[in-house]
């Protein structure tokens, strides 16, 4: 029976159309961030008759950047390395080539922002004075940085831009991919009314129990397939350009730490950890959305209404939280952030620059970590399955 239920789902043209649309969306993001033609001129020569081209497209930029950071990869983060990276940044700026130092730039400006030093100002504790190109700057010491972030092991400089780009873009592709799941599964139960099959099915031996299990299992197989297709395509695209290395990049040194994780202590977490969390929590969110969609489908007799209700339930919270600016202390936005769709970016868009923000609360209770929320969705999925079974058994063909 399972193969027939899978076949019924695969016969749905909308599933294929929406899957292709998601893959096109993923590719367009990849194109925009990696393949797009983008000529960058040396800023010192840009207004001359013969401007020097630094790179012609993003691929060339990535290549240059990898060459640029190669000498620093594997080095432990200490005051010397910070100084070296700051010098690198200022030198590149002098040469009009600051465009090619995204990785060190991110790390430096996030954690070791150099403040122009005034001779008369006091040097606060945990800061040091460095001289770059005859200018003095006040910079936080690595020792102080380690203290602040509770780092219990030395942080090593790595080039993790590929994994970072993949994790960020994959999150959005998976969100769009949810539409495929909603559209494909909303008709699993309600569609039987459209085909006038409900009475025929429920009058058979397996119509009220095994068929429900088969429908759910087929839906989960399709859901998993969609998830892994989207993930695999994104991995293939980004890692083929950036390479596989750099997964050990500490999160504190990456742009991913710009926003606060949902009550998650990020000290000691690598970008690979974040990527794996995206996969695991994202997969659970997919299962949860699939099960909730199936439950809605079992409640409704019309597959179109089922699609609309499911879509509103999943996408409305995201639209609200992403399109409108809320204060993160607001009950509404924090409640909406608990919806499964908001699991994918794995963090709240707090607008806070610093990684330390992790005490997002709701009614004065700290929200649990993303892992606990994901686990809750696993429980919700199981409850949804049980409710579907009970509901279909009780359902009558009127």
């Amino acid at each position, binding site marked *: 029976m399972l193969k027939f239920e899978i076949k019924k789902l695969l016969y749905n043209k909308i599933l294929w159309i929406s899957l292709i649309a998601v893959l096109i969306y993923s590719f367009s993001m990849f194109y925009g961030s990696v393949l797009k033609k983008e000529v960058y001129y040396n800023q010192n020569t840009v207004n001359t008759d013969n401007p020097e081209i630094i790179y012609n497209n993003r691929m060339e930029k990535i290549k240059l950047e990898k060459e640029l950071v190669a000498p620093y990869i594997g080095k432990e983060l200490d005051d010397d390395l910070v100084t070296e990276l700051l010098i690198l940044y200022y030198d590149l700026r002098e040469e009009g080539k600051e465009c090619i130092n995204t990785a060190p730039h991110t790390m430096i400006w996030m954690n070791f922002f150099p403040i122009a030093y005034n001779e008369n100002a006091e040097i606060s504790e945990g800061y040091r004075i460095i001289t770059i190109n005859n200018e003095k700057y006040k910079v936080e010491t690595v020792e102080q940085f380690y203290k602040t972030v509770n780092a219990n092991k030395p942080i090593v400089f790595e080039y993790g831009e590929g994994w970072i780009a993949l994790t960020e873009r994959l999150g959005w592709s998976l969100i769009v991919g949810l539409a495929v799941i909603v559209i494909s599964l909303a008709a699993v139960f309600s569609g039987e009314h459209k085909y*006038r099959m409900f*009475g*025929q099915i*429920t009058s058979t031996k397996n*119509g*009220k129990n095994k068929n429900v299990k088969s429908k759910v299992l087929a839906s989960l197989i399709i859901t998993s397939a969609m998830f892994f297709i989207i993930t695999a395509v994104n991995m293939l695209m980004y890692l083929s350009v950036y390479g596989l290395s750099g997964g050990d990049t500490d999160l504190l040194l990456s742009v991913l730490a710009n926003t606060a994780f949902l009550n998650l202590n990020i000290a000691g977490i690598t970008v690979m950890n974040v990527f794996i969390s995206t996969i695991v929590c994202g997969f659970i969110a997919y299962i949860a959305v699939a099960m909730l969609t199936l439950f809605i489908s079992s409640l409704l007799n019309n597959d179109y209404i089922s699609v609309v209700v499911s879509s509103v339930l999943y996408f409305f919270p995201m639209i609200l939280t992403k399109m409108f600016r809320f204060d993160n202390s607001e009950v509404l936005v924090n409640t909406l952030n608990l919806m499964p769709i908001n699991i994918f970016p794995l963090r709240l868009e707090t607008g806070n620059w610093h990684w330390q923000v992790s005490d997002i609360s709701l009614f004065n209770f700290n929200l649990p970590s993303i892992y606990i929320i994901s686990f809750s969705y696993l429980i919700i999925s199981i409850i949804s399955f049980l409710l579907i079974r009970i509901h279909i058994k009780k359902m009558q063909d009127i």
Partner: protein
Amino acid sequence: MELKIKGISKSYSDTLAVDNFNTNFSPGVYGFLGANGAGKTTVIKILCNILKPTSGIVSYNGEKIEKLSNKYRSQIGYLPQDFGYYPHFTAFSFLLYISALKGIDDKAAKVKTNELLPLVGLEEYRNRKIKTFSGGMKQRLGIAQAMLNDPKILILDEPTTGLDPKERIHFRNLISSFSKDKIVLLSTHIVSDIASIANEILIMKKGKLIVRGTINELLTTIENKVWQCSIDRVTAEKIKSDYIVINMTLSDDLVNLRIISDTCPFYGSILENANLEDLYLYYFREVEHIDAKI
């Protein structure tokens, strides 16, 4: 084997669709007659365990069907009035799917499907998508799916809808050959479908079972009441609402009428042998009277 219906009623908000329906079935073919909206389909859905009665009990061999659950449903073959199908499935794969729903293993399902497709005249269309089928072909496929599990209880709701006369005859023969040691319930408002194959007839009206018996037993209720007469058009126009007019044909200046009447309606009327159609109209006279202009 006995299927017993005891005092079932079904109401939808303020409408009573079935009102205290009592009967029992043992192996045989039963014709279930009634006008549209009489409540036949509701009774059938209750028998198929897809609708719960508001009150009353349906039992199979002494056990409630709700309790028997899938054991009972495995004994049923059901063709709904509005037969459902997946347009993109082929006839063959659709029958295999229904077989799976009925708990028939793959191998047996293929054997049974290969056996049934020629029986319903769909062998050469086995790999064609159902969306390309005519109404009659779909109905034949519906009959085949109902018979897949070799059911002990075969319930067919308006099974001959969309079938041409040749297909109807074929269908009747199919049911006759299939019905041995089985309960076959044929719901219809087309009396000719059941006239030759039903052992007993049940007539339902306004949610109630108003009469049940063999065809001969039922026909005795209108014995000596069916008349044939030829009268002029003006008289025919005047009397058409006074009698149950079953048939009316024109010949020259006269109108030939077949009438149900307790007494001789006109001088010269000839007493005719009653048939099932006369019986049907006798019970449904209020809505079935001929209203056409002569």
